[in-house]
């Protein structure tokens, strides 16, 4: 016996080692990449062909709807960074997708679709049989045939309901377990009672059979639920793509000095990363080599760069402006600023969890009313001496009629129409209850840098400079990647000047640019350097240009306001919103921007926790605040505000905290979002009115016992179609921003 076991064990031994050997030669792995600018079949084919030609790739398949490519590859031959480069060489910007909970959500949407299919099949067949029975009642159908049809309906409807309506049953059970009522409680009760009662009446051979109504109800509600899930999934995917595409590639320097490119997300503490001038710093860390100016506007809101020496802490998302530095990655929890932001955000988010959605608020009133009406009908008919069976039939009719089919579709239908409309305009609404919260807002608080402004310097005093000076300065600047240089070149291009690149331009990092010309040296750089030749070390908001013959011109820079900012602010004010500006930047800069966009209520030098205090203070005074911000320093305020918006250029953490993300330079999407959110809210109320109006007509009929299965089925379908049609009006119409009716 013992020997037999040993022999068996011995026989097993080679197997794992064989598998190991196989693993060593081939390591199958898969990755999902986000690809930008992929619009049609040609792009799809280009990418798939490029991947197929790449050694190590087993399969690459493009999903055009989600803008992703899933690739199965052999990790022993290639890696995901190489694949990103392959797609880059084919002309597309790709990045590794951040893995959310999308897989599970995809499965849930598929599950709903499957249940919807089953419910649709059953509803069609049951309606076929029901129509025959209704028609037969008016002609010569005998009782035996009607009974047969009822039995067939039961056989089709009951398993279909048991399977398809499970999402409602589960949600209702959870709600009752938590001792509260949601919309799914009356829905489940209606479906279960109608099915049970119909089965009983089928046994008895009576006419009060409601299988058709029960299965139609399930079908319509599943449509609403699936669309809701589908739109949310699409928005979530798009939001993840935005963040994924911003991810950077880092140049890592190994201990032997060799440089190697890898995704910034794969960096670990201790790695040394080289950051060239003009590049975004990919990781939190400390400068170990080199000195440079660091643009920290995304983190602090401060527009002027900071001079950083070896030993200085730098944050991911800041831009290295002047010369290459080497940064050693540190763990994020080392950084006090980030740790503080994370702590503030956590505290701020707790307050928001208590928001109750509109549909749930409606169901809190509606569900008890439905149950009371049903009970009253039963009690009333019992007292009138109708007997328990007839009384119960009428009570079930009331439950079916009041079953909030239209009510439960009213909000999701509007939400889906509104979200799709905004999606087409480049606004991604991520939070499920985001639109509802946006609609309630009465105060809008803007961040300055990167939100009201572009977050990149623009030449301010261009009008004071002559064409000749600008053209000459641009001929130097075109050789540099410094943001100020780029601003000079942009200004020259906008004026239509031809830029002749100067030959032999020397960039003196931290100081400026110089080039020899036939007449002598020309220079563009900091004032100190031009004057005395000393390298500058302080904060600067200007450059100086020195001609060969000693002529000097000043170039002043500012962070330009986004296009349409002034119009957006004035439209918001006109509609009755209170508008404020909160910034971590210095007072003079903040005031200048506030004046440019027309905001009187501007606050400068506010720290992240100061922003939260400001918002909490507004909240305490009963205001519902919309925070619009992009920086890391705005993230806690975004989480604390009643609703939040953030541009797609925002720091990852802010984008995640915001309810909605808008794309592109103009600020107009903010207005569109507010408009659609308010219109959606109004339409939700309209839909409630339609649903309740229909109940006002049919509930008395049902209580009086006049509702036949035919009336129940028709009324149910018509009300659902009416609210859906109303919601669809939200698409493609031109909407004005409704003004707030101030009550206070």
């Amino acid at each position, binding site marked *: 016996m013992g020997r037999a076991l040993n022999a068996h064990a011995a026989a097993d031994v080679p197997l794992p080692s064989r598998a190991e050997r196989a693993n060593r030669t081939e390591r199958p792995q898969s990755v999902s990449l986000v690809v930008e600018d992929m619009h049609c079949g040609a792009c799809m084919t280009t990418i798939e062909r490029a991947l197929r030609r790449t050694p190590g790739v087993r399969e690459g398949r493009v999903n055009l709807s989600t803008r992703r490519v899933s690739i199965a590859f052999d990790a022993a031959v290639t890696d995901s960074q190489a694949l990103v480069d392959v797609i880059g060489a084919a002309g597309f910007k790709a990045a590794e997708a951040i893995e959310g909970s999308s897989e599970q959500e995809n499965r849930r949407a598929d599950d709903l679709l499957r249940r919807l299919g089953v419910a649709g099949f059953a509803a069609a*067949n049951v309606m076929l049989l029901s129509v025959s029975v209704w028609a037969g009642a008016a002609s010569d159908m005998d009782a035996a045939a009607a009974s047969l049809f009822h039995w*067939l309906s039961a056989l*089709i409807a009951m398993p279909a309901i048991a399977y398809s309506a499970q999402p409602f049953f589960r949600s209702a059970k959870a709600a009752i377990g938590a001792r509260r009522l949601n919309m799914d409680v009356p829905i489940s009760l209606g479906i279960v009672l109608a099915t049970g009662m119909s089965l009983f009446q089928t046994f008895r051979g009576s006419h009060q059979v409601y299988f058709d109504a029960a299965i139609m109800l399930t079908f319509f509600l599943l449509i609403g639920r699936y669309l809701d899930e589908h739109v949310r999934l699409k928005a979530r995917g798009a939001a993840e793509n935005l963040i994924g595409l911003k991810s950077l590639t880092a140049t890592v320097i190994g201990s032997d000095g060799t440089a190697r490119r890898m995704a910034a997300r794969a960096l670990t503490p201790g790695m040394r990363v080289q950051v060239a001038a003009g590049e975004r710093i990919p990781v939190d860390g400390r400068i170990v080599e080199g000195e440079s100016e660091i643009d920290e506007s995304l983190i602090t809101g401060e527009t002027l760069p900071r001079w950083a020496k070896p030993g200085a802490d730098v944050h991911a998302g800041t831009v290295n402006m002047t010369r290459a530095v080497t940064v050693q990655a540190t763990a994020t929890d080392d950084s006090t600023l980030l740790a503080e932001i994370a702590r503030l955000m956590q505290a701020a988010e707790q307050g928001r969890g208590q928001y109750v959605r509109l549909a749930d608020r409606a169901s809190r009133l509606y569900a008890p009313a439905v149950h009371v009406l049903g009970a009253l009908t039963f009690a009333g008919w019992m007292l009138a001496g109708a007997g328990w069976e007839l009384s119960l039939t009428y009570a079930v009719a009331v439950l079916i009629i009041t079953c909030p089919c239209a009510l439960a579709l009213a909000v999701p239908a509007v939400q889906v129409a509104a979200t799709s409309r905004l999606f087409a305009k480049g606004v991604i609404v991520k939070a499920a209850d985001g639109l509802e919260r946006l609609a309630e807002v009465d105060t809008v608080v803007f961040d300055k840098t990167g939100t009201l402004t572009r977050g990149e310097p623009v030449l301010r005093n261009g009008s004071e400079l002559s064409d000749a000076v600008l053209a000459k300065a641009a001929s130097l600047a075109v050789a540099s990647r410094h943001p100020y240089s780029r601003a000079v070149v942009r200004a020259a291009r906008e004026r239509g000047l031809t830029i002749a690149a100067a030959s032999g331009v020397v960039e003196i990092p931290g100081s400026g640019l110089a080039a020899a010309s036939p007449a002598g040296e020309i220079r563009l750089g900091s004032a100190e350097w031009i004057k005395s030749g000393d390298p500058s070390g302080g904060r600067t908001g200007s450059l100086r240009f020195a001609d060969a013959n000693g002529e000097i011109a000043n170039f002043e820079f500012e962070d330009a306001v986004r296009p349409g900012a002034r119009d957006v602010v004035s439209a918001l004010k006109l509609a009755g919103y209170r508008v404020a500006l909160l910034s971590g930047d210095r007072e003079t800069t903040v005031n200048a921007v506030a004046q440019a966009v027309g905001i009187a209520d501007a606050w400068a030098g506010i720290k992240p926790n100061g922003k939260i205090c400001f918002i909490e203070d507004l909240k305490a005074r009963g205001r519902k605040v919309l925070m619009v911000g992009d920086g890391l320093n705005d993230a806690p305020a975004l989480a604390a505000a009643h609703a939040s918006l953030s541009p797609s250029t925002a720091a990852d953490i802010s984008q995640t905290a915001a309810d909605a993300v808008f794309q592109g330079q103009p600020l107009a999407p903010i207005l569109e979002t507010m408009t659609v959110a308010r219109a959606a809210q109004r339409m939700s109320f309209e839909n409630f009115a339609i649903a309740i109006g229909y109940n006002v007509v049919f509930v008395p009929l049902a209580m009086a016992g006049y509702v036949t299965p035919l009336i129940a089925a028709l009324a149910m379908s018509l009300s659902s179609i009416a609210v859906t049609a109303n919601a669809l009006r939200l698409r493609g119409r031109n909407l004005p921003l409704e003004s707030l009716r101030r009550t206070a």
Partner: protein
Amino acid sequence: MSALAWLIPCALALGGLGLAAFIWSLNSGQFNDLEGSGWRAIQDDEEPSQPPKP
């Protein structure tokens, strides 16, 4: 009325066939990329089986 004996099973079977086809297409991932599938159908094959004649 005797026609019902075969008409109803026929109707149900056809409906069931449709449902089965739907569930099969769902399970095989055909609803995952509605945009891409349309394009895929009209794309040229990578290597044409016959070289185009001059």
